[in-house]
């Protein structure tokens, strides 16, 4: 959108909104529209000199703003909001569809009702919504238990798979909320074993039981601020260097890394941080030669040892 059209867009949205929020202050209105109070004041001034051609006082938009807030006295035909643009309809509808499949305290029936209302209100503008989707990948049994525990405010016992340590751990958690980043859902909960807030991937919850006791999240538990992303590296983590050839490129799409360098022969040298190196060892085993660990040497050796052991089980000794 060009600047002028964006400005007009805001004004056309402002008048209807102010009408149903009478008495709102300049600061609140400015915050709602994401502009400075100065900008909003100029917008109101502009509005009050616009209206019908004769431009007598009765033909102009009439907005008053005093200390007790903004009042729209005469909106001059622009009292109602402009119909939804395709992007606007799509954004909300795709968001609603994504939400419908996620566990949480919201009622899926309410979501369905809203989808219907919005499609009705959007008309043709919603046509493109069939062409964009966010898939949710949630194991249904675990999701149901999470949903119930949040709805009934009761604690949850889970069997949780930690692939990097190849363990299934049994723990009681106090659910706080579900976080869905793209297609993956996570349960953010107070873990009574770790005595800390943890993020559990719902598709790794092997089984879950809703307990009788209530959720008891201690006051010191803090929700994660998601603006930094779900996972933050720690300076105490181990630095690992891995080199990958063309078949191993997917590594850079799969893990967050510190930096990557392309070598002369097209090999990628990737440096990443991790608190637990075992999962990298498994990842390299998974790569089947498409990548190898350069550093630390003990980790590279552990991969060799494991691969040799497994080959021996097949009656195969590797050529030296």
């Amino acid at each position, binding site marked *: 959108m060009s600047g002028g059209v964006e400005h007009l867009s805001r004004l056309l949205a402002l008048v209807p909104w102010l009408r149903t929020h009478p008495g709102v202050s300049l600061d609140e209105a400015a915050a709602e529209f994401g502009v400075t109070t100065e900008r909003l004041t100029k917008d109101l001034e502009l509005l009050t000199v616009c209206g019908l051609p004769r431009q007598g006082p009765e033909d102009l938009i009439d907005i008053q703003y005093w200390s007790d807030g903004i009042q729209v006295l005469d909106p001059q035909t*622009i009292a109602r909001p402009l119909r939804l643009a395709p992007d606007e309809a799509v954004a909300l509808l795709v968001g609603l569809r994504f939400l419908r499949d996620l566990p949480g305290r919201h009622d899926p029936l309410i979501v369905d009702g809203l989808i219907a209302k919005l499609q009705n209100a959007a008309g043709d503008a919603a046509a493109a919504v069939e062409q964009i989707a966010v898939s949710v990948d949630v194991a249904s049994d675990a999701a149901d238990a999470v949903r119930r525990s949040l709805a009934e405010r009761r604690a949850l016992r889970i069997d949780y798979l930690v692939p990097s340590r190849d363990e299934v751990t049994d723990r009681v958690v106090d659910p706080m909320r579900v976080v869905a980043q793209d297609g993956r859902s996570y349960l953010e909960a107070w873990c009574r074993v770790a005595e800390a807030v943890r993020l559990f991937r719902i598709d790794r919850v092997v089984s879950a039981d809703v307990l009788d006791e209530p959720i008891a999240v201690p006051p010191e538990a803090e929700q994660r601020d998601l603006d930094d992303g779900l996972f933050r590296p720690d300076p105490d983590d181990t630095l690992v260097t891995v080199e990958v050839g063309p078949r191993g490129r997917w590594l850079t799409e799969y893990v967050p890394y510190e930096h990557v360098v392309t070598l002369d022969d097209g090999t990628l040298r990737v440096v990443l941080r991790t608190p637990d190196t075992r999962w990298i060892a498994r990842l390299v085993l998974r790569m089947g030669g498409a990548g190898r660990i350069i550093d630390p040497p003990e980790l590279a050796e552990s991969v060799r040892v494991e691969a040799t052991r497994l080959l021996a089980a097949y009656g195969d000794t590797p050529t030296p």
Partner: protein
Amino acid sequence: MSARRTERLLNLTICLMAGRRPVSKAELRQSIADYRDSVSDDAFERMFERDKDDLREMGIPLSTEHHDPLFDDEVGYRIDPRAYAMPEVEVGPDEAAVLTLAARVWQQAALAPAATAALRKIEAYTGADGGAEHADGLGVEPRVATSEPAFEPLYAAVRDRQPVRFAYRGPRDPQAVERRLEPWGVVSWHGRWYVVGHDLDRDDTRLFRLGRIEGKVSTNGRPGTVTVPAGVDPAASVRSLAPDDAPREARIRVPHAGAHSLRVLAVSVEPGAGTDLITVPFGDPWSFAADVVAAGGVVEEPDDLRDACVTHLRGVLAEEAPR
């Protein structure tokens, strides 16, 4: 852009909506200050054309009508207030909270401004405050990222039904190759965006991961020229286009206290001394071999899976051999 231009556009909008009959160009020229003050007919025409384009670009239904078709009269302009306005929507507090969440999905992503604008239009009817605190209490925080640079142009191409071309580097390609696509949809799956559509060079349905597109996505034809076949469900297409052989069962020996990522998939377990023998369904032997090796399992049968694991392990050792 100048406040003056915004004023003029706003006055034009109000004027065209207020009239019960279409307004002629001559009347507009008299009524709107900037048109009146135009230095020439030409200057006025150009300004007026641009203004009409701007309003239509915003989705304002500016129509051109004839006063009286019999007399091939002057053309008149009008904005029908019922076509202009969003239909009234009623939203209760529970619904307002859910809508706020739905808009939040796009926070920090490409459609965030559109989501906010939509929410605000609805709030213009309901007067609700979006129920932000109420939304927080719903116990779910959904987000989608659109960090791939290709997302915006591809989303626009899908929305506008326009063909595209782009350089694409597949997982095994040493270099990017130009592809031409009639895009049908974009889908976020397992955290990554994909575009699905008709590949013009392969003459077949294809799927592309946006993260593997290199450089710009260019349009390759006019908007509205792509026909999406009836019944295409982009999300289902993405799931089905992933390779998937008919499932067979493998018997795998696993240590007692390990290989949990395989155990959770097992349909049966035969306990043994030191190790257990588990039966696990699988599709493609090559990708499953990677899973088995990474979990520390040893395959007893079938043979092709066994061979795949051996090859896989030899590959690891060849690569790990000190240089």
